[in-house]
């Protein structure tokens, strides 16, 4: 920084050019002192020059905060430029000098009443940027005036200032009633004011999702639509983005809004166009498809989307990412526009890759010839990533458009002839998928493929080739030699290749048992004895066991018919797609991730959904907890949330290839791992004992886990034979969105996946919430003969205080009443204590008092302490008891997995508390069931090296979420539980509940 200033100094000290850079020249020592003197000069000009020098120093990163009082002294000036500079200085240093910043307050307040609206606005704008509490207090009065200022320039600035202030002190804004004023500004006569008010309200609403601020009704919508025609391009974006949050009441309203929004598609600003597209894409959902207007609207959307491709490259990129979503949601819009996505030589790489992706999505029988010609052209380019993706794209075309498969294969063979290493490898990977899609059609090319065996150095390509050799072993004469050659370096191979090699050799053995016995023994021993990879060992043992006990069964399992792979390998999971459509134009649409995955503080924010369509018979997918108590249906494809969760759990055991797509089957592996793990973890735990199947220590309490049966033959056979064959990653872009599983593939896997993902579906839970046994709360001797035993329970969602009142006195007791002191969670009796008949001596009565949590709140020590007063005809007695916090766990405490991920990451590690639960003799499923009875929901599970990790969420009545990770190791009675919560104080209590629930 200094250098820059000095450099400028050298260059310019003789220069006569009068530019601002001259202010950078005084960066010598003692400068601060000099500046101080200049700032206090009587001459206005000199003062201004000095302030400019100060700002120049600030700009190059020098600390000039020492000059704070001197600069603030210059604030009272009628020179607007000087004032702006001083304000700028204040914004920068006020936070570090809060006490001195107060000095400026008076001038601010005065400036807010200046006759010049520019100065009023400037003052209110700057004040909002000074994030010092003491100053904000003084801001309220000027802000109130400015919100009602006669000049729209001041009002529009004040509107934004409300959002600023809200960001610093939300309570203050509410108390001062600024939110209402802001809402009033939506009806302002000036469109700029309206736009800024909308922007400010949206901003506040976004950070406070439950505030219900943007209470959009047809009247306000009408006002917004009117302002839309008159405000600046930016204002139009604010308004359109706000409109997109509205859900019209019916298709008529939806159509009339669409009609008023469509003209925006002709705006020169791409951002206006995209925001309009967002509104239209969303509202279109409500229009009946047979409506003429629906067709008109579809037609209107294509041209502006295409024109976006003439914008600047960065905007093109955003547009292309969004078009990718739009094409998935409504393919009909752009189906005739293939050509515009052809790649140009000078397109930036990020544009090229996106165009390629869209080309594949639009590929159809009608245009496939053109597309293939283009792809072939691209595959001979030099940009490695682009070429790879082009080759993959050819494979995807083959799978998507059956008629083109032959041409695709021959194109791929041509490309293999080029001998360009990475082209060959990509080609082999995709050809494997083509084999799977069209069995017994193209196997004649195997010989050509085999020629290139030696040049394959990428794990994915090696694995693909090995799969091919194993799968078609009977047609390849020297299959054993080929596979044997891989075996030499077995331990240097990646897991992916090792697993594949193991399976391939087993397949080979089953097909040609006589020649390959030695080979199969070799690979089994390599896999089971010399490897420390549990996946590999487990799979090796399964094969070993299968082959040694029942070769026929082995054949059935290993050589089973594989499910066909489907073309739509990389579609975004539908609910996520819907959410992303609601976020068109934003970062979420660029990342293809929901905002909750990358924005802090957005957990718990409702995921946006498209409105249901009217009259078209489409129904929204059922929400959790819908009729019949059936939990949320497992999605047909593994949602990419799964991958996200996988991220969190480090589930992805395969080392990612450097430039390749995400490992081909992270989803698969999850499935497979669980499958193998479920049955064999425990038995493989004991290394010294070679394969045998001991009875599994599996409590039969898991009716919802039908697929997790204990012996291998029950596994869905395709799992073991099909393994790598399906290539869910085939279509996934480089660094693109996580690949979803092909739909057809998910069927056999779903067993395993259900286990993984849908443990939370509490269907017919056998156990209720845990309730501790009654204890003596109030001994008779302390209460003139009244003895109270009590406990707490949660029954059918209702918290109850269950008491046994015993009269140990000599006289009858009556007129019972109960009251609670203020407590941490606002527990209060929901009704009077129902003791209707007087209590005779030595008589006992059972009372259940329903409680609610809307009482006054005061933090107690310990947190779950409750002070109770019981009155009867004799006296008032006081006692305190502690309730298990588990009764505050609500039934809808299942957190979305993705939200879980984000939240877990987001909560600082300091908030994490770890506890050990000793002597708990349950397996993880039983534990999970038990906990669920008390509304501790397991939302994901994974198994690593015999250790089950359960990821659980809990929601308290006051909305606090607690996230837990429970580690259960087979054979180890000590569980580890880690709790993360934004309010770490509850952790201790929650842990106690864990212990209590698990041990009872």
């Amino acid at each position, binding site marked *: 920084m200094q250098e820059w200033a000095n450099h400028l100094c050298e260059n310019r000290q003789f220069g006569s050019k009068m530019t601002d850079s001259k202010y950078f020249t005084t960066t010598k020592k003692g400068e601060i002192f000099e500046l101080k003197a200049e700032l206090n000069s009587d001459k206005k000009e000199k003062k201004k020059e000095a302030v400019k020098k100060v700002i120049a120093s600030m700009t190059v990163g020098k600390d000039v905060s020492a000059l704070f009082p001197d600069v603030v002294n210059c604030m009272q000036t009628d020179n607007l430029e000087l004032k702006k500079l001083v304000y700028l200085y204040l914004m920068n240093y006020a936070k570090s000098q809060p006490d001195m910043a107060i000095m400026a307050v008076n001038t601010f307040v005065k400036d807010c009443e200046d006759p010049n609206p520019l100065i009023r606005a400037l003052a209110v704008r700057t004040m909002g940027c000074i994030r010092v509490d003491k100053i904000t207090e003084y801001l309220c009065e000027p802000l109130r005036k400015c919100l009602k200022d006669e000049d729209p320039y001041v009002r529009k600035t004040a509107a934004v200032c409300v959002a600023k202030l809200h960001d610093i002190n939300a309570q203050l804004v509410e108390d001062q009633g600024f939110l209402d004023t802001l809402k009033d500004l939506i009806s302002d006569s000036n469109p700029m004011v309206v736009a800024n008010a909308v922007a400010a309200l949206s901003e506040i609403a976004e950070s406070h999702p439950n505030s219900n601020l943007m209470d959009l009704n047809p009247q306000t919508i009408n006002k917004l639509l009117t302002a839309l025609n008159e405000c600046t*391009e930016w204002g139009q974006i604010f308004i359109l983005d706000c409109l997109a949050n509205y859900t019209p009441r019916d298709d008529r309203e939806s159509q009339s809004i669409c009609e008023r929004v469509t003209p925006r598609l002709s705006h020169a600003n791409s951002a206006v166009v995209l925001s309009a597209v967002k509104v239209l894409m969303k509202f279109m959902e409500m229009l009946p498809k047979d409506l003429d207007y629906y067709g008109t609207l579809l037609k209107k959307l294509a041209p502006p989307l*295409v024109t976006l491709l003439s914008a600047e490259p960065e905007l093109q990129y955003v547009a292309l990412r969004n078009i990718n979503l739009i094409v998935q949601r409504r393919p009909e819009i752009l189906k005739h526009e293939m050509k515009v996505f052809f790649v140009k030589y000078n397109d930036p790489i990020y544009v090229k890759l996106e165009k390629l992706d869209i080309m594949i999505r639009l590929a159809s029988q009608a245009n496939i010839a053109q597309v293939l010609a283009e792809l072939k052209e691209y595959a001979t380019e030099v940009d490695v990533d682009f070429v790879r993706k082009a080759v993959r794209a050819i494979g995807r075309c083959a799978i998507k458009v059956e008629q083109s498969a032959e041409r695709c294969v021959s194109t791929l063979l041509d490309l293999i002839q080029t001998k360009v290493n990475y082209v060959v490898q990509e080609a082999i990977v995709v050809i494997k998928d083509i084999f799977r899609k069209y069995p017994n059609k193209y196997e004649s090319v195997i010989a050509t493929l085999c020629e290139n065996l030696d040049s394959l150095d990428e794990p994915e390509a090696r694995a693909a080739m090995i799969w091919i050799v194993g799968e078609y072993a009977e047609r390849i004469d020297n299959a054993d030699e080929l596979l044997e050659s891989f075996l030499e370096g077995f331990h240097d191979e990646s897991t992916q290749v090792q697993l594949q090699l193991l399976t391939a050799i087993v397949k080979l053995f089953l097909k040609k048992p006589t020649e390959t016995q030695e080979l199969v023994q070799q690979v089994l021993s390599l896999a089971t004895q010399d490897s420390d990879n549990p996946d590999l060992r487990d799979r090796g043992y399964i094969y070993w066991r299968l082959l040694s006990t029942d070769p026929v069964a082995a054949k059935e399992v290993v050589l089973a018919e594989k499910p066909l792979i489907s073309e739509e390998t990389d579609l975004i999971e539908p609910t996520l797609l819907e959410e992303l459509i609601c976020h068109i134009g934003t970062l979420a649409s660029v990342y293809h991730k929901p905002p909750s995955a990358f924005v802090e503080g957005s957990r718990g924010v409702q995921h946006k959904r498209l409105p249901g369509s009217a009259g078209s018979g489409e129904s929204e997918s059922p929400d959790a907890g819908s009729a019949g108590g059936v939990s949320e249906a497992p999605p047909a494809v593994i949602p990419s949330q799964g991958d996200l969760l996988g991220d969190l759990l480090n589930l992805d055991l395969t080392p990612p290839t450097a430039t390749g797509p995400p490992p081909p089957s992270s989803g698969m592996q999850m499935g497979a791992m669980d499958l193998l793990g479920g049955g064999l973890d425990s038995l493989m735990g004991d290394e010294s004992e070679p394969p045998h199947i001991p009875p599994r220590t599996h409590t039969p309490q898991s009716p919802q886990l039908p697929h997790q049966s204990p012996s291998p033959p029950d596994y869905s056979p395709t799992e073991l034979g099909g393994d790598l064959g399906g290539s869910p990653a085939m279509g996934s872009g480089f660094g693109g969105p996580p690949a979803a599983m092909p739909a057809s593939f998910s069927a056999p896997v779903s067993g395993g996946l259900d286990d993984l993902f849908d443990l939370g579906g509490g269907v017919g839970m056998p156990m209720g919430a845990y309730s501790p046994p009654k204890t003596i709360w109030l001994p008779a001797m302390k209460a003139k003969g009244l003895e109270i035993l009590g406990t707490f329970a949660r029954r059918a969602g209702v918290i109850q205080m269950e008491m046994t009142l015993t009269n140990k006195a000599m006289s009858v007791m009556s007129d019972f009443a109960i009251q609670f002191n203020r407590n941490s969670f606002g527990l209060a009796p929901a009704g009077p204590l129902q003791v209707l008949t007087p209590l005779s001596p030595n008589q006992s009565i059972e009372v259940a008092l329903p409680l609610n949590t809307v009482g006054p709140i005061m933090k107690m020590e310990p947190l779950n302490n409750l002070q109770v007063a019981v009155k009867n005809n004799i006296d008032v007695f006081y006692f305190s008891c502690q309730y298990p916090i588990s009764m505050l766990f609500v039934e809808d405490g299942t957190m979305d997995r993705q939200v879980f991920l984000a939240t877990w990451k987001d909560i600082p590690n300091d908030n994490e508390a770890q506890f050990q639960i000793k002597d708990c003799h349950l397996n993880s499923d039983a534990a999970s069931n038990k906990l669920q009875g008390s509304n501790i929901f397991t939302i994901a599970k994974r198994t690593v090296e015999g250790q089950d990790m359960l990821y659980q969420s809990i929601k308290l009545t006051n909305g606090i979420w607690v996230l837990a990770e429970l580690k259960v190791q087979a054979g180890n009675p000590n569980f580890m539980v880690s709790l993360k919560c934004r309010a770490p104080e509850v952790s201790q209590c929650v842990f106690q509940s864990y212990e209590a629930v698990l041990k009872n």
Partner: protein
Amino acid sequence: MSASAIFVLDLKGKVLICRNYKGDVDMAEIDHFMSLLMQHEEDGLICPVMSHGNVHFMWIKHSNLYLVATTNKNSNASLVYSFLYKLVEVFTEYFKELEEESIQDNFVVVYELLDELMDFGFPQTTDSKILQEYITQEGAKLEVAKSKVPTTVTNAVSWRSEGIKYKKNEVFIDVIESINVLVNANGSVMSSDIVGSIKLKTMLSGMPELRLGLNDRVLFALTGRDKGKTVVMEDVKFHQCVRLSRFESDRTISFIPPDGESELMSYRINTHVKPLIWIESVIEKFSHSRVEIMVKAKGQFKKQSVANNVEVRVPVPSDADSPKFKTSTGHAKYVPEKNLVVWTIKSFPGGKEFLMRAHFGLPSVENEELEGKPPITVKFEIPYFTVSGIQVRYMKIIEKSGYQALPWVRYITQSGDYQLRTNV
């Protein structure tokens, strides 16, 4: 909603000037920008959005500057990029050139502009003509004239000030059509379209109401006229000043124009156009010895028209040497830093055909680096003519003072993205 802060960086990633709008992202985060960018470049995967932790960088590059917006929210990305480009536009209008030096030379104005252009992440007034009325470059004093916000800032008409006066009221209309063509190596046209633009230079007093009439087929169909040639515009984009809902309802292009120069509208036409200058090329590469290039250019437009400043750019291998040329007209030049032969023809009449031959030597040791296959590109301008046949039929100018104003129209067709792939 959009940006938390805006930074202007030099090529090394050093912050030249910045403005923190929301304070929710640590300003020091920008230090990660350069290393992230380099990382992406190394991986060959440059991307306009990058993230570090929960901070997202959206950036563009202009001359020797990076303009970067940071955010930690789900911002409207298209708005941010539009805004960054608007920033470039405003700065350029203020300082002629936007580059490192102009930022340093004008930091006071830059700060003032940053303050006015965006507030708390919301873009505000970004029309540079209007901004220039109250943010002046001479470091203005607070004079009486400046003590008012120009009403334009908050007016519904935010692009034109009141009280503009001209002695002679005129408006100049330029209709410019750019031809984009992509031709395959085997000579088939893969895609072609026309991107047209209508630019105005308005020198009109007061607050004139303008109405532009084009031979728009949709309009003619609406009004029932169908005389003469009409044009189907696939997509039309308008300047902020045009009343979009009016256009949507009756195809009338009505507006109060900004003063001076502006782009009133642009349109795209999808019709299959014959490439106006057709190129046939034979490029033969004899490894280790030579490259022979033969290029034939043909004017496929009316004989009466003339294409000016035609440039045919033919790629050559990067290790080529000792160029020799022969041309039937114009002259050819080797531009080694771009690995191109540029064949220039000052005046190219329609229907004519010209030829250029080039010969290059190749070193006996071959360049090992794989080279891409850049296409042949062509540049040209044909005045007095639009490919689409679009015409300005009238321009009505009404101002309450009732002056007479003259509209002048000019047509020109030029090359846009005009690429012909080659076999080599």
